[in-house]
C-alpha cells in the first residue's frame, strides 16, 4: 500500500510534466514515420532490384523477360542499365556495372546453351503460387528491425524519465526525506519503477495499435509483454544504478546516452559475422523480441526469458545495494 502511494505520486509527477507529454506525442509521429520508412524502403528496394536491360536479340529478350527482376526491352539502341548486342553469336555487353555484367553473363550462357542437354538449368524450378501481394522486403525490414525499434522506444525513453526523477530528488534533497519514510530501500525502487513500467506498457500497447492500422500484426502478445516486463526491469534497474552514481542530471544523462548508444549499436546496426561474436549477437534481446513476435512459440524461446530474467534479478539486486550505500546520496 505504501508502495502504491509512492508509485501514484511518481505517476502524477511524470504526467504533469509538459515536456514528457511533448515527447510522448513526438514518439507517436516517430512510430508512424517508422512504418512509412518500412513502406518506402520496400518500394525503393523493389525499384533497385529491377534492372532494365535492352537487347537487339528478340529471342534473348523473351528469355530475359522470364526473370522477374529484370525489365527487358527489345531495342537497337542503348537503353536502360545495360545493352546486350548479339552480332552473329558474339555477345557484346555494354554496361558500367560489374555485378550486372556478371548476372548478364550467366543469363547469356543460360540462354545460349538452353537446348543443349547438359547445360540446361540443372535444377528444376517450380513456381510459387502467390495468393496475395506481399512484399518480402517489407516483411523483412518491418519485423526484424522496425517493430523491435517501436517496442524498445518507450523503454529507452522511460529510462531517462526515471533517472530524471531520482537525480532530481537528489538535487532537491528530497530523496533523504523519502529514505526516512517507513519504506524499505527495495520498496522505494519498486515504487519508482512501477509507474514507468505502467507507462511503458501503455505506450507499447498504443504503438502496437498504431502499427496494426497499417496491417502490421504481431504474434504472442502475452509472451511479448512478459518479455518486455523483464527487459524493463533490467534496463530501469540499470538506470537506477546510473542515477545513484551520478551527482547531477547532466552527468546521469551522459551515462545514459552512452549506454543507449552502445545498446542501439549492438541491437540495430548490421555487424559482420565473425565466429564468436555472431554467436553472442544471437542472444541479443532484439532477436528474442523478433522470435516472440513472429514465430510460433516453442521451447527454444525459453532461453531468452531465462537469460534476461537472471540479468534483471542481478541488476535489481545491484540497484538495491547501491541505494543502500549512503555515500551515493551525498553529492
Amino acid at each position: 500500500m505504501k508502495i502504491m502511494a509512492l508509485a501514484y505520486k511518481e505517476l502524477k509527477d511524470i504526467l504533469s510534466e509538459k515536456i514528457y507529454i511533448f515527447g510522448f506525442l513526438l514518439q507517436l509521429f516517430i512510430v508512424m514515420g517508422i512504418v512509412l520508412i518500412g513502406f518506402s524502403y520496400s518500394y525503393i528496394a523493389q525499384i533497385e532490384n529491377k534492372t532494365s536491360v535492352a537487347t537487339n536479340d528478340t529471342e534473348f529478350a523473351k528469355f530475359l523477360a522470364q526473370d522477374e527482376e529484370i525489365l527487358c526491352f527489345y531495342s537497337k539502341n542503348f537503353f536502360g542499365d545495360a545493352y546486350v548486342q548479339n552480332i552473329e553469336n558474339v555477345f557484346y555487353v555494354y554496361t558500367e556495372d560489374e555485378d550486372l555484367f556478371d548476372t548478364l553473363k550467366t543469363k547469356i550462357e543460360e540462354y545460349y546453351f538452353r537446348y543443349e542437354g547438359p547445360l540446361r538449368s540443372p535444377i528444376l524450378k517450380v513456381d510459387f503460387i502467390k495468393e496475395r501481394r506481399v512484399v518480402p522486403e517489407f516483411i523483412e525490414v518491418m519485423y526484424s528491425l522496425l517493430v523491435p525499434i517501436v517496442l524498445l522506444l518507450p523503454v529507452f525513453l522511460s529510462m531517462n524519465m526515471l533517472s530524471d526523477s531520482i537525480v532530481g530528488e537528489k538535487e532537491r534533497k528530497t530523496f533523504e526525506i523519502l529514505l526516512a519514510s517507513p519504506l524499505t530501500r527495495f520498496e522505494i525502487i519498486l515504487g519508482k519503477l512501477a509507474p514507468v513500467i505502467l507507462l511503458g506498457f501503455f505506450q507499447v500497447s498504443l504503438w502496437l495499435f498504431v502499427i496494426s492500422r497499417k496491417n502490421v500484426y504481431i504474434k504472442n502478445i502475452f509472451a511479448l509483454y512478459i518479455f518486455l516486463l523483464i527487459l524493463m526491469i533490467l534496463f530501469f534497474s540499470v538506470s537506477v544504478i546510473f542515477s545513484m552514481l551520478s551527482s547531477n542530471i547532466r552527468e546521469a544523462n551522459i551515462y545514459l546516452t552512452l549506454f543507449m548508444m552502445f545498446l542501439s549499436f549492438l541491437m540495430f546496426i548490421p555487424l559482420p559475422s565473425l565466429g564468436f561474436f555472431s554467436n553472442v549477437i544471437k542472444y541479443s534481446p532484439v532477436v528474442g523480441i523478433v522470435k516472440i513476435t513472429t514465430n510460433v512459440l516453442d521451447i527454444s524461446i525459453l532461453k531468452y526469458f531465462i537469460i534476461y530474467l537472471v540479468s534483471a534479478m542481478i541488476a535489481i539486486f545491484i540497484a538495491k545495494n547501491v541505494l543502500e550505500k549512503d555515500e551515493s546520496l551525498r553529492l
Partner: protein
Amino acid sequence: MMKKIIKWELKRIFSSKKFTAAFILQFFLIVLIIPMFTVYLETLQSGKFFSTTPGMNEFIPIGMNRKCKLSEIIEEYDQFSLTILEKNGGMKMLQKGNIVAYILVDDDFDQKMLKLENITLLIYYNNSDKSYVAKSYLDSIVNGFSDGLRRARMREYDIPSILIEKKDRTDFVAETEKPKTVEEKKETVPKETTPIEKEMVDIKRLKFSLNREYILLLVMLLPLFMSGGLLTDSIVSEKEKKTGEMLLVLPTKRRNIILGKMLAIFLITVVQIILWIFILYGVGKISNIYTIFPLILAAFLVINLSLLISVYSQNYKESALLVTVIYILVFAFMFGTSILYISELKTLSLLSPLSMVIGLEEGSLTTLDTIYGVLPALSFSFISLALSVYLFSKDSFYFGPRPKLLDLIPDIFSKIGKGNFASFFLGCLSVFGAIIVEIAVGVLMYFFLNLDVGFVIFLLSIVFIEEYLKYLAMLPNKSKFSGVFVGFGFGFFENLLSGFVLFTMFFPVEMILFRIIPLLIHMSSSGILGYFRYKKKTKLGFIIAFIIHLAYNTIILVSI
C-alpha cells in the same frame, strides 16, 4: 568583445575533463571503426555472408529432409535457422507454422551433384508472411547453386564458352558509328582442376549491404553529436547556474555573446571534422578531400538547431529531450533523403547535405547540384540562427516566465517588417509552416481514418491551415492590400518548391506553366481576407477565403 567570448569558451571547453574524455572516446571509435570497416570490405569481397541487422538472426525458420551440400550453404546464412526433419514431421511443422518452408531433396543429392547429374528439389512454403521472405532468399540460393553446376558442367564436358565481351557505355557510340567487323574469337576455356564445391555458389545478393559512404557518414556523426551537446551544455548550464546573467551585463550586444559561443563550438567542430577526414583520407578510406565542405555545412546546420533549442529551453532536462528528438528527426531526414541520391530522384536528395558527400565520393556532383545542395541547408541554418539571436535578446527567455510559442509567432513576424515587401517574404516563409503541419495532419489521417473520410478531412484541414498561416503572415501589415502580397508570396514560393519537385520527378514543363492559376487563387483568397480585415470583418473574410480556396482545390481534385 566577441573575440574575448570565443576565447573564454574555447578555454573553458579545453580545460574541462569531459571534453577531453569525449575527444579521446571519439578518437578510439574512429580508430576502431577503420579496422572494422576493413573487415566489412574484406567480408564483402571474400563472398562470406553477412549477419544483417541483429534482428535478422535466425529470422526464417525452415526445415530440410537431410544434410547435404545445399544445407551447408543455407546454414552459412545467419537469416536461416535450419532444422533437419523427416518428411511427415516437417510437413506437420510447416502446417503448424513452426517452420515457413520445407525443402525436400533427393536421397543421393551429394552424389548426383558430384556426378553433375540433374537434381530435383522440392520446396514447400506455407502461407505465412515470412514464407515470402524465405522464398526470395531460397530463390537466389537455388539460382546460384544452379549456375555453379552449369559452370562445372561446361568445364567437365569441355564445352567452349561463348564470347561475351564487356564494354563501357561510351564505347557504344563509338562502335555504332563505324561499320562493324565481326571478330572470330574462339578460345577454349582451360580445364581447371579446382573442386566443384568451391565455386558452386556465386551469390551476389547482399541485402542491407552498407556502402562505403554510409559508414563514413556514420563516423562523421560523432563530432556533430558532440558539438550539439557542448553548445547546449554551455548555454543551458549558464542559465541554470545563473552565471549567464553576468555575461548579459557585459558591455557588448547580446548578439555577440551568443554568436561568440556558437562560433567557438563551430570552430572546434570544424577542426575535428578536418582532423578525422584527413586521417580517413590518409589511410585511404575516402577518395575526395572536399567531403569536408558538405560535412561542415551539415555541422553548421546541426549547431544552429542546437543553439535554438538551448536558447529556448529553461533547464537541462528540457534541452536534453529536445536535442535528442530533434537530432533523431534531423538525422533521419538527412539519411532518408540521401538514400534517394542512389535512386533516380537525385535533385530531391540534395536537400540533405549528406548527399553531396556521396556525390563527391562517386565523383558525380555537378555545379548545379552543389547549388541545390548548399542553399536549403544554409538557409535553414541562418533562419534558426536569426531566431536564436532574436529569442536571446528577449529577457523573458532568460529570466522567465517564458512566453508561449504561439504568442511568439506574430511577434517574430512583426520583427521582419510591416511593409508590403515584408508581407511577400512572410508569405514565402509560411509555406514551410504549412508543409510541416500538412504532413503531420496527412500522416495522422493516413493512419487513423479510412481513406474517404480521411481524405475529406485532410482536404478541409489543408485549406484551413494555409489560410490561417497566411492570416498570421498578414497581421503586421495594416494596409488594404496586405493579403494580396502575402498570397503572392505564398503562391510564388509554393510554385517554386513544387516546380523543384516536379522537375525532379520528370513532369513536363506545361505542368509548371499551369501553376499560374493556384498563384492567382492564393492571391485572391488572402487578398479578400486582407481586405475584410482592413474593414474589421475578419471572420466573414476568413469564411469567404476558405470557400474560394476549398472550391478550387475540390475542382482540381475532381478533374484529376
